């Protein structure tokens, strides 16, 4: 692993209802290129808020997120002009628990919309690339299907390659397998495993401890909006220090 910092998160805070709900309460962490960072923690600990803050789907109350050298929480970019968050979001793929495919478009249209509309890739080229990606996840023959015709596992694989079609520098996953029937979890994890092997930088919120152990190179444990422990999978799962983490692991393992 290189130590090239891709995202630096500094003292990130997200409050709701004034200060009554502290979804994030001062999180500081660096995400390096090539990291597969797995975020674990009990429900309501702020995992989703953390992940969604990284591409500003949630606007943080305080703190900064420096992505590829630019503090994207600022109103103005380094050139003094208004910061264009869309520009940075292109480079951060996101995969949601509920897939969020566009139901009125075919699989192929789902995948070419952003490359064509955002990066001005010619339609034919975008389709070619999309078909290659679909082939990699074994869904090339479903290119002209509509999302409603796919199983949950297939939808999530499409959602992953839809994000990959933008050639992002990092992929963010928020519980990508939580909405799936158990027999479909494996096919999605396989795609993610493959992606990790290719060196994609990934931040993954998951309850799949097996995946965290096997694929992650760093594990973050969050509780009450705070980052309580961070370490290698071995350190976190075999030698947990924080009592909250010990308690959490005793319940989920």
């Amino acid at each position, binding site marked *: 692993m290189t130590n090239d910092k891709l995202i630096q998160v500094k003292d990130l805070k997200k409050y709701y209802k004034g200060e009554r709900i502290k979804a994030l309460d001062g999180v500081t962490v660096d995400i390096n290129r090539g990291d597969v960072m797995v975020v674990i923690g009990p429900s309501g600990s702020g995992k989703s808020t953390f992940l969604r803050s990284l591409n500003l789907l949630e606007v943080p109350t305080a703190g900064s997120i420096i992505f590829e050298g630019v503090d994207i929480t600022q109103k103005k970019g380094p050139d003094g002009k208004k910061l264009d968050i*869309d520009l940075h979001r292109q480079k951060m793929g996101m995969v949601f628990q509920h897939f969020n495919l*566009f139901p009125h478009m075919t699989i192929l249209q789902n995948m070419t*919309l952003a490359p064509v509309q955002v990066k001005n890739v010619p339609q034919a080229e975008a389709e070619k690339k999309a078909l290659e990606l679909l082939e990699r996840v074994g869904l090339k023959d479903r290119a002209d299907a509509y999302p409603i015709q796919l199983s949950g596992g297939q939808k999530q694989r499409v959602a992953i390659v839809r994000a990959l079609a933008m050639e992002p520098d990092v992929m963010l996953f928020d519980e990508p397998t939580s909405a799936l029937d158990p027999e479909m979890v494996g096919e999605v994890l396989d795609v993610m495993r493959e992606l990790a092997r290719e060196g994609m930088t990934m931040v993954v919120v998951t309850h799949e401890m097996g995946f965290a152990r096997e694929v992650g190179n760093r594990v973050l444990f969050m509780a009450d909006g705070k980052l309580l422990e961070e370490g290698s999978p071995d350190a976190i799962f075999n030698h947990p220090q924080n009592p909250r983490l010990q308690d959490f692991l005793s319940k989920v393992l």
Partner: protein
Amino acid sequence: MLTVQGFQKALEYWKLFLQGVVCTVSLSALTVIFGFILALILAICRMGRSRILKAIATVYVELFRATPMVVQIFVIFYVVFDGVKVLPGFKLFGFIRFDRFFPAVVALSLNSGAYLSEIIRSGIQSIDIGQTEASRSLGLSSVKTMRFVILPQAIKNILPAIANEFVTIIKESAICYTIGVQDIMSAVNAVKGATYRMAEALIIATVLYFCLTYPTSKVIAHFERKMSAGDKR
């Protein structure tokens, strides 16, 4: 009393009725187009972040929904356009007086914009927030998200309500004869003035309005079925 001679007499003025149909159709079509554009703007203002725009749009919508159409049209015609003095007096298609027609389009558009904006707003809000999040996370701007992701889904959902509004506009446009627009109702009036008979002309008008609205709702229902069929392919 309806008589055959009465109909014959009334139909001698078929040209007036034909012009009335052209006028009513143009009026309604323009109203739907401008009303829809206005409604989109209003809906976006009401859902947007700016409090001032939100307040203006809300007051506008409530005002137009809470006052009678005939009052609105009189205010637009007699107050806003101050009679006919400020508008050019040429004739569209050689018979529609622009100085009457234009204020009518404005008034109807302003009115239906208010109603349509509520339809559009509820349609947009019925789309899962996850759709917007997925689109924005792919780097699409809020405008492109609206255009490619939200509106196509929302419009499909609200098409029945929009169709209903179109039919309503055709019917309500009949009020425009009160400011001298030469629509179907004004043809009735003209025939009455010339023949001293109104009943037959009214029946003809009824048939004409029905022939406009009924197929319209059928055509839209057909498209609606076609579009929702795409969902289940």
